[in-house]
Protein backbone atom coordinates (compact mmCIF):
# COMPACT_ATOMS: atom_id res chain seq x y z
CA UNK A 1 0.00 0.00 0.00
CA UNK A 2 1.23 3.48 -0.88
CA UNK A 3 1.15 5.79 2.10
CA UNK A 4 0.64 9.48 1.59
CA UNK A 5 3.22 11.50 3.43
CA UNK A 6 1.24 13.91 5.66
CA UNK A 7 3.75 16.59 4.73
CA UNK A 8 2.43 16.61 1.21
CA UNK A 9 -1.09 17.21 2.45
CA UNK A 10 -0.31 20.59 3.89
CA UNK A 11 -2.02 23.60 2.32
CA UNK A 12 0.33 25.60 0.19
CA UNK A 13 0.22 29.35 -0.09
CA UNK A 14 -0.54 30.11 -3.72
CA UNK A 15 0.73 33.70 -3.49
CA UNK A 16 4.15 32.59 -2.33
CA UNK A 17 6.98 33.10 -4.83
CA UNK A 18 9.06 30.87 -2.63
CA UNK A 19 7.56 28.04 -0.65
CA UNK A 20 9.44 25.51 1.49
CA UNK A 21 7.34 22.75 3.05
CA UNK A 22 9.12 20.40 5.48
CA UNK A 23 12.25 20.30 3.41
CA UNK A 24 15.22 18.08 4.14
CA UNK A 25 18.43 18.28 2.16
CA UNK A 26 21.36 15.89 2.32
CA UNK A 27 24.57 16.00 0.33
CA UNK A 28 25.48 12.37 -0.19
CA UNK A 29 25.13 11.30 3.45
CA UNK A 30 25.81 14.70 5.03
CA UNK A 31 22.58 16.26 6.28
CA UNK A 32 22.46 19.98 5.53
CA UNK A 33 18.84 20.93 6.18
CA UNK A 34 16.08 19.40 8.28
CA UNK A 35 12.38 20.16 8.24
CA UNK A 36 12.61 23.65 6.77
CA UNK A 37 9.28 25.41 6.23
CA UNK A 38 8.72 29.01 5.26
CA UNK A 39 7.17 31.02 2.46
CA UNK A 40 8.09 34.35 0.97
CA UNK A 41 5.81 36.50 -1.12
CA UNK A 42 6.37 38.98 -3.90
CA UNK A 43 8.28 42.03 -2.82
CA UNK A 44 9.47 40.55 0.44
CA UNK A 45 12.94 41.22 1.77
CA UNK A 46 14.21 38.17 3.58
CA UNK A 47 17.37 37.96 5.62
CA UNK A 48 18.94 34.56 6.38
CA UNK A 49 21.45 34.39 9.16
CA UNK A 50 23.16 31.86 11.38
CA UNK A 51 26.59 30.41 12.04
CA UNK A 52 28.81 28.86 9.42
CA UNK A 53 27.49 25.52 8.22
CA UNK A 54 23.97 26.30 9.42
CA UNK A 55 22.56 25.84 5.94
CA UNK A 56 22.08 29.36 4.57
CA UNK A 57 23.72 28.68 1.22
CA UNK A 58 21.85 25.40 0.97
CA UNK A 59 18.52 27.22 1.15
CA UNK A 60 19.56 29.60 -1.62
CA UNK A 61 20.77 26.68 -3.71
CA UNK A 62 17.40 25.00 -3.33
CA UNK A 63 15.65 28.18 -4.45
CA UNK A 64 17.81 28.33 -7.59
CA UNK A 65 17.21 24.60 -8.10
CA UNK A 66 20.91 23.98 -7.98
CA UNK A 67 20.04 21.37 -5.37
CA UNK A 68 16.86 19.38 -4.94
CA UNK A 69 15.20 18.43 -1.65
CA UNK A 70 15.69 14.96 -0.30
CA UNK A 71 12.32 15.23 1.41
CA UNK A 72 9.47 17.72 1.41
CA UNK A 73 8.59 20.22 -1.25
CA UNK A 74 10.13 23.33 -2.69
CA UNK A 75 7.93 25.49 -4.91
CA UNK A 76 9.48 28.40 -6.73
CA UNK A 77 7.18 30.64 -8.76
CA UNK A 78 4.70 27.81 -9.04
CA UNK A 79 7.28 25.26 -10.11
CA UNK A 80 7.57 22.19 -7.97
CA UNK A 81 11.19 21.13 -7.53
CA UNK A 82 10.43 17.43 -7.26
CA UNK A 83 8.53 17.47 -10.56
CA UNK A 84 10.92 19.81 -12.31
CA UNK A 85 12.30 18.70 -15.64
CA UNK A 86 16.03 19.34 -15.33
CA UNK A 87 16.05 20.83 -18.82
CA UNK A 88 13.64 23.50 -17.65
CA UNK A 89 15.87 24.66 -14.80
CA UNK A 90 17.64 27.24 -17.05
CA UNK A 91 14.27 28.85 -17.72
CA UNK A 92 13.69 29.25 -13.97
CA UNK A 93 17.20 30.65 -13.52
CA UNK A 94 16.34 33.43 -15.95
CA UNK A 95 13.81 34.65 -13.39
CA UNK A 96 16.33 34.49 -10.58
CA UNK A 97 19.27 36.79 -10.00
CA UNK A 98 22.09 35.33 -7.91
CA UNK A 99 25.04 37.11 -6.34
CA UNK A 100 27.83 35.69 -4.25
CA UNK A 101 30.48 36.67 -1.77
CA UNK A 102 33.18 36.14 -4.42
CA UNK A 103 31.37 38.16 -7.15
CA UNK A 104 31.91 35.52 -9.85
CA UNK A 105 32.59 37.87 -12.71
CA UNK A 106 34.37 36.77 -15.87
CA UNK A 107 37.77 38.38 -15.46
CA UNK A 108 38.67 38.36 -19.14
CA UNK A 109 35.92 40.73 -20.20
CA UNK A 110 34.74 44.21 -19.35
CA UNK A 111 32.03 45.15 -16.88
CA UNK A 112 29.76 45.87 -19.84
CA UNK A 113 30.38 42.45 -21.40
CA UNK A 114 29.90 40.71 -18.07
CA UNK A 115 26.44 42.22 -17.72
CA UNK A 116 25.57 41.83 -21.40
CA UNK A 117 26.57 38.17 -21.13
CA UNK A 118 23.51 37.37 -19.02
CA UNK A 119 21.28 38.81 -21.73
CA UNK A 120 23.16 37.20 -24.58
CA UNK A 121 22.84 33.76 -23.09
CA UNK A 122 19.11 34.24 -22.77
CA UNK A 123 18.80 35.35 -26.39
CA UNK A 124 17.86 39.02 -26.09
CA UNK A 125 18.14 41.11 -29.27
CA UNK A 126 21.32 43.17 -29.64
CA UNK A 127 19.52 46.50 -29.54
CA UNK A 128 17.66 45.56 -26.37
CA UNK A 129 20.85 44.29 -24.76
CA UNK A 130 22.39 47.74 -25.12
CA UNK A 131 19.40 49.45 -23.55
CA UNK A 132 19.10 47.05 -20.64
CA UNK A 133 22.79 47.01 -19.82
CA UNK A 134 22.87 50.77 -19.87
CA UNK A 135 19.88 50.91 -17.55
CA UNK A 136 21.29 48.58 -14.89
CA UNK A 137 24.84 49.89 -15.06
CA UNK A 138 23.50 53.39 -14.52
CA UNK A 139 21.45 52.14 -11.58
CA UNK A 140 24.49 50.65 -9.86
CA UNK A 141 26.62 53.67 -10.79
CA UNK A 142 29.09 51.89 -13.03
CA UNK A 143 28.15 53.18 -16.46
CA UNK A 144 31.27 55.35 -16.67
CA UNK A 145 33.45 52.37 -15.69
CA UNK A 146 31.83 49.95 -18.11
CA UNK A 147 34.99 49.39 -20.14
CA UNK A 148 37.06 48.29 -17.17
CA UNK A 149 38.00 44.72 -16.41
CA UNK A 150 36.81 43.35 -13.04
CA UNK A 151 40.32 43.48 -11.59
CA UNK A 152 40.41 47.21 -12.31
CA UNK A 153 37.50 47.72 -9.92
CA UNK A 154 37.27 47.86 -6.14
CA UNK A 155 35.56 45.01 -4.32
CA UNK A 156 32.42 47.07 -3.82
CA UNK A 157 32.34 48.00 -7.50
CA UNK A 158 32.81 44.38 -8.50
CA UNK A 159 29.88 43.40 -6.31
CA UNK A 160 27.79 46.14 -7.90
CA UNK A 161 28.73 44.81 -11.33
CA UNK A 162 27.63 41.35 -10.20
CA UNK A 163 24.35 42.81 -8.94
CA UNK A 164 23.88 44.58 -12.27
CA UNK A 165 24.32 41.24 -14.01
CA UNK A 166 21.80 39.65 -11.65
CA UNK A 167 19.32 42.47 -12.31
CA UNK A 168 19.61 42.78 -16.04
CA UNK A 169 17.14 40.02 -16.85
CA UNK A 170 14.57 41.66 -14.52
CA UNK A 171 14.40 38.73 -12.10
CA UNK A 172 11.43 38.05 -9.87
CA UNK A 173 13.72 36.74 -7.16
CA UNK A 174 17.17 37.98 -6.20
CA UNK A 175 19.39 35.69 -4.15
CA UNK A 176 22.44 37.14 -2.43
CA UNK A 177 24.75 34.73 -0.64
CA UNK A 178 26.83 36.75 1.82
CA UNK A 179 27.15 39.58 -0.69
CA UNK A 180 28.86 41.76 1.89
CA UNK A 181 31.26 39.07 3.11
CA UNK A 182 34.27 40.54 1.33
CA UNK A 183 33.35 44.18 1.73
CA UNK A 184 34.14 46.93 4.21
CA UNK A 185 31.17 48.56 6.02
CA UNK A 186 30.83 51.42 3.53
CA UNK A 187 30.69 49.12 0.51
CA UNK A 188 28.51 46.70 2.44
CA UNK A 189 26.04 49.45 3.06
CA UNK A 190 26.06 50.48 -0.59
CA UNK A 191 25.40 46.89 -1.59
CA UNK A 192 22.50 46.56 0.81
CA UNK A 193 21.08 49.89 -0.34
CA UNK A 194 21.11 48.46 -3.85
CA UNK A 195 19.34 45.31 -2.72
CA UNK A 196 16.70 47.49 -1.08
CA UNK A 197 16.22 49.44 -4.29
CA UNK A 198 15.80 46.25 -6.27
CA UNK A 199 13.33 45.08 -3.65
CA UNK A 200 11.41 48.37 -3.96
CA UNK A 201 10.67 47.53 -7.58
CA UNK A 202 8.86 44.38 -6.42
CA UNK A 203 11.60 41.77 -6.61
CA UNK A 204 11.67 39.30 -3.75
CA UNK A 205 15.14 39.49 -2.22
CA UNK A 206 16.66 36.72 -0.11
CA UNK A 207 20.05 37.47 1.30
CA UNK A 208 22.24 35.61 3.71
CA UNK A 209 24.76 37.03 6.09
CA UNK A 210 26.38 36.12 9.34
CA UNK A 211 27.12 39.74 10.13
CA UNK A 212 24.95 40.48 13.20
CA UNK A 213 25.38 44.21 12.83
CA UNK A 214 23.85 44.08 9.38
CA UNK A 215 21.04 41.87 10.63
CA UNK A 216 20.25 44.26 13.43
CA UNK A 217 20.43 47.30 11.21
CA UNK A 218 18.61 46.09 8.11
CA UNK A 219 16.70 42.95 9.02
CA UNK A 220 13.00 43.34 8.26
CA UNK A 221 12.23 39.66 8.28
CA UNK A 222 15.02 37.53 9.68
CA UNK A 223 15.25 33.75 9.54
CA UNK A 224 17.88 32.47 11.94
CA UNK A 225 19.36 29.12 11.00
CA UNK A 226 21.16 26.76 13.29
CA UNK A 227 22.50 23.34 12.51
CA UNK A 228 20.29 22.85 9.47
CA UNK A 229 17.08 23.97 11.17
CA UNK A 230 15.16 27.21 11.40
CA UNK A 231 15.75 28.52 14.93
CA UNK A 232 13.50 31.55 14.55
CA UNK A 233 11.59 33.43 11.87
CA UNK A 234 11.07 36.98 13.06
CA UNK A 235 9.55 40.08 11.53
CA UNK A 236 10.01 43.66 12.64
CA UNK A 237 6.80 45.38 13.70
CA UNK A 238 7.77 48.66 12.11
CA UNK A 239 9.41 49.12 8.72
CA UNK A 240 13.11 49.67 8.66
CA UNK A 241 14.10 53.16 7.62
CA UNK A 242 15.86 52.14 4.46
CA UNK A 243 17.40 55.53 3.92
CA UNK A 244 19.10 55.74 7.29
CA UNK A 245 22.75 55.07 8.00
CA UNK A 246 24.12 51.73 9.15
CA UNK A 247 24.85 52.95 12.70
CA UNK A 248 21.39 54.53 13.02
CA UNK A 249 19.59 51.34 12.18
CA UNK A 250 19.78 49.32 15.38
CA UNK A 251 16.76 47.56 16.79
CA UNK A 252 14.67 49.50 19.26
CA UNK A 253 13.56 47.55 22.34
CA UNK A 254 10.28 45.68 21.86
CA UNK A 255 10.46 46.08 18.11
CA UNK A 256 10.36 42.37 17.26
CA UNK A 257 7.40 40.03 16.75
CA UNK A 258 7.19 36.40 15.62
CA UNK A 259 6.66 36.05 11.88
Amino acid at each position, binding site marked *: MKRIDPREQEPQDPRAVIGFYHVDLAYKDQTALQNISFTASNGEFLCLTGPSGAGKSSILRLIAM*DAFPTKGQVIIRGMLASKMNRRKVPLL*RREIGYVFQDFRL*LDDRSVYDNVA*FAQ*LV*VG*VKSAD*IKMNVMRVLTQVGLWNKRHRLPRQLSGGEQQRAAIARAMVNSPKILLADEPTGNLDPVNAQETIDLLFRINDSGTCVVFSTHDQQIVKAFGERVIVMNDGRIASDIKRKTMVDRTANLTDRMYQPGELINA
Partner: protein
Amino acid sequence: MLKGAQVRYLMKESFAGFHRRKLTTGVTILIMGSSLLVLAVLTLATLNLDHLLAKARSSIDMRVFLLESLDPGQVAELQPRLLVIPGVKEVKFISSETALHEFRTSLGQDAGVLDFLETNPLPASYHIQFTAGARNLDSVRQIRDEIAAWPEVAEIIFNQGWVDALEGWSARFRMANLITGLIVFIAVVFVISNTVKLTMAASSRLIQIQKLVGATNGFIRLPFLCEGMLQGVLAGGLAMGLVAVASSFMQNRLSGMIFFSVEQIAGFIMFCMVLGLLGSWSAMRKYLTLQSEL
Protein backbone atom coordinates in the same frame (compact mmCIF):
# COMPACT_ATOMS: atom_id res chain seq x y z
CA MET B 1 16.73 30.21 -32.77
CA LEU B 2 20.02 31.94 -32.19
CA LYS B 3 20.15 35.70 -32.34
CA GLY B 4 22.85 37.59 -34.24
CA ALA B 5 24.63 38.54 -31.04
CA GLN B 6 24.65 34.90 -29.94
CA VAL B 7 26.12 33.72 -33.23
CA ARG B 8 28.88 36.31 -32.94
CA TYR B 9 29.51 35.20 -29.38
CA LEU B 10 29.70 31.52 -30.37
CA MET B 11 32.13 32.24 -33.19
CA LYS B 12 34.30 34.26 -30.85
CA GLU B 13 34.24 31.60 -28.15
CA SER B 14 35.06 28.77 -30.54
CA PHE B 15 38.13 30.60 -31.80
CA ALA B 16 39.02 31.82 -28.33
CA GLY B 17 39.77 28.24 -27.29
CA PHE B 18 42.30 28.06 -30.12
CA HIS B 19 43.74 31.41 -29.34
CA ARG B 20 44.19 30.81 -25.62
CA ARG B 21 46.17 27.62 -26.13
CA LYS B 22 47.87 28.07 -29.46
CA LEU B 23 50.61 25.55 -28.77
CA THR B 24 48.39 22.76 -27.45
CA THR B 25 45.92 23.24 -30.24
CA GLY B 26 48.69 23.40 -32.84
CA VAL B 27 50.31 20.22 -31.59
CA THR B 28 46.95 18.49 -31.38
CA ILE B 29 46.11 19.37 -34.96
CA LEU B 30 49.55 18.18 -36.08
CA ILE B 31 49.08 14.83 -34.33
CA MET B 32 45.60 14.35 -35.72
CA GLY B 33 46.73 15.60 -39.10
CA SER B 34 49.45 12.96 -39.28
CA SER B 35 47.16 10.10 -38.36
CA LEU B 36 44.64 11.36 -40.88
CA LEU B 37 47.51 11.61 -43.36
CA VAL B 38 48.12 7.88 -43.04
CA LEU B 39 44.46 7.28 -43.76
CA ALA B 40 44.45 9.66 -46.71
CA VAL B 41 47.55 8.05 -48.23
CA LEU B 42 46.08 4.59 -47.90
CA THR B 43 42.79 5.72 -49.36
CA LEU B 44 44.60 7.32 -52.27
CA ALA B 45 46.59 4.12 -52.86
CA THR B 46 43.40 2.08 -52.84
CA LEU B 47 41.83 4.54 -55.21
CA ASN B 48 44.75 4.27 -57.62
CA LEU B 49 44.78 0.50 -57.42
CA ASP B 50 41.09 0.43 -58.21
CA HIS B 51 41.74 2.74 -61.11
CA LEU B 52 44.48 0.43 -62.44
CA LEU B 53 42.27 -2.57 -61.89
CA ALA B 54 39.46 -0.99 -63.86
CA LYS B 55 41.91 -0.25 -66.66
CA ALA B 56 43.25 -3.79 -66.63
CA ARG B 57 39.76 -5.18 -66.65
CA SER B 58 38.72 -3.08 -69.60
CA SER B 59 41.65 -4.52 -71.52
CA ILE B 60 40.73 -8.13 -70.77
CA ASP B 61 40.41 -9.98 -74.01
CA MET B 62 40.89 -13.54 -75.22
CA ARG B 63 42.60 -15.24 -78.11
CA VAL B 64 41.14 -18.58 -79.12
CA PHE B 65 43.64 -20.49 -81.29
CA LEU B 66 42.19 -23.08 -83.60
CA LEU B 67 43.45 -26.49 -84.71
CA GLU B 68 45.37 -26.31 -87.99
CA SER B 69 43.42 -29.22 -89.38
CA LEU B 70 40.13 -27.28 -89.61
CA ASP B 71 38.77 -26.46 -93.01
CA PRO B 72 37.50 -22.90 -93.77
CA GLY B 73 33.86 -23.99 -93.41
CA GLN B 74 34.42 -25.34 -89.91
CA VAL B 75 36.30 -22.16 -88.99
CA ALA B 76 33.54 -19.87 -90.25
CA GLU B 77 30.89 -21.83 -88.39
CA LEU B 78 32.61 -21.06 -85.08
CA GLN B 79 32.04 -17.31 -85.26
CA PRO B 80 28.25 -17.31 -84.67
CA ARG B 81 28.67 -19.90 -81.94
CA LEU B 82 31.13 -17.65 -80.15
CA LEU B 83 28.94 -14.58 -80.55
CA VAL B 84 25.97 -16.12 -78.80
CA ILE B 85 27.94 -16.84 -75.61
CA PRO B 86 26.70 -14.37 -72.94
CA GLY B 87 29.34 -11.72 -72.16
CA VAL B 88 30.95 -11.83 -75.59
CA LYS B 89 30.77 -8.48 -77.33
CA GLU B 90 32.91 -8.77 -80.42
CA VAL B 91 34.58 -11.58 -82.28
CA LYS B 92 37.26 -10.95 -84.86
CA PHE B 93 38.84 -13.59 -87.03
CA ILE B 94 42.57 -13.48 -87.46
CA SER B 95 43.78 -15.80 -90.15
CA SER B 96 47.22 -17.35 -89.93
CA GLU B 97 48.36 -14.98 -92.75
CA THR B 98 47.17 -11.91 -90.88
CA ALA B 99 48.85 -13.24 -87.74
CA LEU B 100 52.11 -13.68 -89.59
CA HIS B 101 51.80 -10.24 -91.10
CA GLU B 102 51.19 -8.72 -87.69
CA PHE B 103 54.12 -10.66 -86.30
CA ARG B 104 56.31 -9.42 -89.12
CA THR B 105 55.38 -5.79 -88.47
CA SER B 106 56.03 -6.23 -84.79
CA LEU B 107 59.51 -7.56 -85.52
CA GLY B 108 60.36 -4.56 -87.71
CA GLN B 109 64.06 -4.71 -88.85
CA ASP B 110 64.47 -8.27 -87.67
CA ALA B 111 61.59 -9.47 -89.83
CA GLY B 112 64.12 -11.04 -92.19
CA VAL B 113 64.39 -14.13 -89.99
CA LEU B 114 60.86 -15.08 -91.01
CA ASP B 115 61.97 -15.51 -94.60
CA PHE B 116 63.64 -18.75 -93.64
CA LEU B 117 60.32 -20.30 -92.64
CA GLU B 118 58.89 -22.77 -95.10
CA THR B 119 55.39 -22.94 -93.66
CA ASN B 120 53.41 -20.45 -91.59
CA PRO B 121 53.69 -21.68 -87.97
CA LEU B 122 51.03 -19.33 -86.65
CA PRO B 123 47.56 -20.80 -86.20
CA ALA B 124 44.39 -18.95 -87.07
CA SER B 125 42.50 -17.52 -84.11
CA TYR B 126 39.48 -15.63 -82.94
CA HIS B 127 40.02 -12.47 -80.93
CA ILE B 128 37.19 -12.09 -78.41
CA GLN B 129 36.24 -8.87 -76.61
CA PHE B 130 33.87 -8.88 -73.69
CA THR B 131 30.96 -6.74 -72.63
CA ALA B 132 31.66 -4.43 -69.65
CA GLY B 133 29.68 -6.67 -67.31
CA ALA B 134 31.76 -9.72 -68.20
CA ARG B 135 35.17 -8.08 -67.78
CA ASN B 136 36.08 -9.88 -64.60
CA LEU B 137 37.99 -13.00 -63.87
CA ASP B 138 35.06 -15.16 -62.93
CA SER B 139 33.04 -14.55 -66.08
CA VAL B 140 36.07 -14.76 -68.33
CA ARG B 141 37.14 -18.06 -66.76
CA GLN B 142 33.67 -19.43 -67.21
CA ILE B 143 33.66 -18.47 -70.87
CA ARG B 144 37.12 -19.95 -71.30
CA ASP B 145 36.06 -23.26 -69.77
CA GLU B 146 33.07 -23.39 -72.05
CA ILE B 147 35.09 -22.77 -75.20
CA ALA B 148 37.97 -24.99 -74.14
CA ALA B 149 35.67 -27.98 -74.28
CA TRP B 150 35.12 -27.49 -78.01
CA PRO B 151 37.12 -29.98 -80.12
CA GLU B 152 38.07 -27.29 -82.67
CA VAL B 153 40.03 -25.27 -80.13
CA ALA B 154 43.78 -25.71 -79.74
CA GLU B 155 44.60 -23.14 -77.06
CA ILE B 156 43.14 -20.16 -75.24
CA ILE B 157 45.19 -17.24 -73.97
CA PHE B 158 44.10 -14.24 -71.91
CA ASN B 159 45.84 -11.70 -69.70
CA GLN B 160 44.59 -13.06 -66.41
CA GLY B 161 47.82 -12.76 -64.40
CA TRP B 162 47.70 -8.97 -64.43
CA VAL B 163 44.09 -8.78 -63.25
CA ASP B 164 44.63 -11.57 -60.73
CA ALA B 165 47.49 -9.77 -59.00
CA LEU B 166 45.67 -6.46 -58.98
CA GLU B 167 42.55 -7.96 -57.52
CA GLY B 168 44.54 -9.52 -54.72
CA TRP B 169 46.25 -6.23 -53.92
CA SER B 170 43.07 -4.28 -54.12
CA ALA B 171 41.41 -6.56 -51.56
CA ARG B 172 44.40 -6.27 -49.25
CA PHE B 173 44.46 -2.49 -49.52
CA ARG B 174 40.79 -2.28 -48.84
CA MET B 175 41.23 -4.30 -45.66
CA ALA B 176 44.22 -2.21 -44.56
CA ASN B 177 42.21 0.88 -45.29
CA LEU B 178 39.33 -0.29 -43.17
CA ILE B 179 41.52 -1.21 -40.21
CA THR B 180 43.52 2.02 -40.41
CA GLY B 181 40.30 3.96 -40.77
CA LEU B 182 39.00 2.41 -37.59
CA ILE B 183 42.19 3.08 -35.63
CA VAL B 184 42.41 6.65 -36.91
CA PHE B 185 38.75 7.15 -36.11
CA ILE B 186 39.26 6.11 -32.49
CA ALA B 187 42.52 8.00 -32.14
CA VAL B 188 41.18 11.26 -33.54
CA VAL B 189 37.98 11.13 -31.52
CA PHE B 190 40.06 10.46 -28.41
CA VAL B 191 42.51 13.29 -29.05
CA ILE B 192 39.79 15.81 -29.84
CA SER B 193 37.81 14.69 -26.84
CA ASN B 194 40.85 15.34 -24.67
CA THR B 195 41.54 18.81 -25.99
CA VAL B 196 37.91 19.75 -25.64
CA LYS B 197 38.01 18.47 -22.06
CA LEU B 198 40.99 20.75 -21.47
CA THR B 199 39.12 23.70 -22.92
CA MET B 200 36.14 22.91 -20.77
CA ALA B 201 38.27 22.66 -17.66
CA ALA B 202 39.80 26.01 -18.54
CA SER B 203 36.31 27.43 -19.10
CA SER B 204 34.74 26.05 -15.95
CA ARG B 205 34.12 29.60 -14.68
CA LEU B 206 32.42 30.51 -17.92
CA ILE B 207 30.26 27.38 -17.81
CA GLN B 208 29.35 28.04 -14.21
CA ILE B 209 28.26 31.58 -14.99
CA GLN B 210 26.33 30.47 -18.04
CA LYS B 211 24.40 28.08 -15.83
CA LEU B 212 23.94 30.81 -13.28
CA VAL B 213 22.27 33.17 -15.72
CA GLY B 214 20.11 30.47 -17.27
CA ALA B 215 21.89 29.21 -20.37
CA THR B 216 20.56 25.91 -21.67
CA ASN B 217 22.96 23.00 -21.88
CA GLY B 218 22.64 23.14 -25.65
CA PHE B 219 23.86 26.70 -25.74
CA ILE B 220 26.72 25.97 -23.35
CA ARG B 221 27.80 23.06 -25.52
CA LEU B 222 27.77 24.86 -28.85
CA PRO B 223 31.15 26.60 -28.70
CA PHE B 224 32.82 23.35 -27.64
CA LEU B 225 31.17 21.45 -30.46
CA CYS B 226 32.31 24.12 -32.87
CA GLU B 227 35.82 23.93 -31.50
CA GLY B 228 35.99 20.16 -31.96
CA MET B 229 34.53 20.46 -35.44
CA LEU B 230 37.03 23.13 -36.38
CA GLN B 231 39.91 21.01 -35.11
CA GLY B 232 38.69 18.07 -37.14
CA VAL B 233 38.38 20.16 -40.29
CA LEU B 234 41.81 21.75 -39.83
CA ALA B 235 43.49 18.39 -39.20
CA GLY B 236 41.70 16.90 -42.21
CA GLY B 237 42.67 19.87 -44.35
CA LEU B 238 46.27 19.53 -43.23
CA ALA B 239 46.33 15.84 -44.12
CA MET B 240 44.72 16.53 -47.50
CA GLY B 241 47.16 19.33 -48.23
CA LEU B 242 50.15 17.13 -47.45
CA VAL B 243 48.83 14.32 -49.63
CA ALA B 244 48.21 16.79 -52.44
CA VAL B 245 51.77 18.11 -52.26
CA ALA B 246 53.25 14.61 -52.06
CA SER B 247 51.17 13.28 -54.93
CA SER B 248 52.01 16.21 -57.18
CA PHE B 249 55.68 15.23 -56.73
CA MET B 250 54.84 11.60 -57.41
CA GLN B 251 52.85 12.36 -60.53
CA ASN B 252 56.07 13.36 -62.27
CA ARG B 253 57.40 9.83 -61.79
CA LEU B 254 54.24 7.74 -61.90
CA SER B 255 52.28 8.79 -64.91
CA GLY B 256 48.62 7.83 -64.83
CA MET B 257 48.39 8.34 -61.06
CA ILE B 258 45.07 9.86 -60.08
CA PHE B 259 44.14 12.19 -57.19
CA PHE B 260 40.92 12.55 -55.17
CA SER B 261 37.99 14.23 -56.89
CA VAL B 262 36.52 17.38 -55.38
CA GLU B 263 33.62 15.34 -54.00
CA GLN B 264 36.01 12.88 -52.41
CA ILE B 265 38.02 15.69 -50.80
CA ALA B 266 34.80 17.23 -49.49
CA GLY B 267 33.75 13.81 -48.19
CA PHE B 268 37.07 13.34 -46.40
CA ILE B 269 36.84 16.77 -44.75
CA MET B 270 33.25 16.03 -43.74
CA PHE B 271 34.42 12.77 -42.21
CA CYS B 272 37.01 14.71 -40.19
CA MET B 273 34.37 17.19 -39.12
CA VAL B 274 32.17 14.37 -37.86
CA LEU B 275 35.16 13.00 -35.95
CA GLY B 276 35.58 16.40 -34.33
CA LEU B 277 31.92 16.55 -33.41
CA LEU B 278 31.98 13.07 -31.92
CA GLY B 279 35.12 13.90 -29.96
CA SER B 280 33.71 17.03 -28.37
CA TRP B 281 30.37 15.36 -27.82
CA SER B 282 31.93 12.52 -25.87
CA ALA B 283 34.02 14.98 -23.86
CA MET B 284 30.93 16.90 -22.84
CA ARG B 285 28.72 14.03 -21.96
CA LYS B 286 30.76 13.39 -18.85
CA TYR B 287 32.01 16.84 -18.14
CA LEU B 288 28.85 18.91 -18.24
CA THR B 289 26.98 16.69 -15.85
CA LEU B 290 29.91 16.72 -13.44
CA GLN B 291 29.87 20.49 -13.55
CA SER B 292 26.25 20.96 -12.69
CA GLU B 293 26.84 22.88 -9.49
CA LEU B 294 26.81 26.63 -9.43
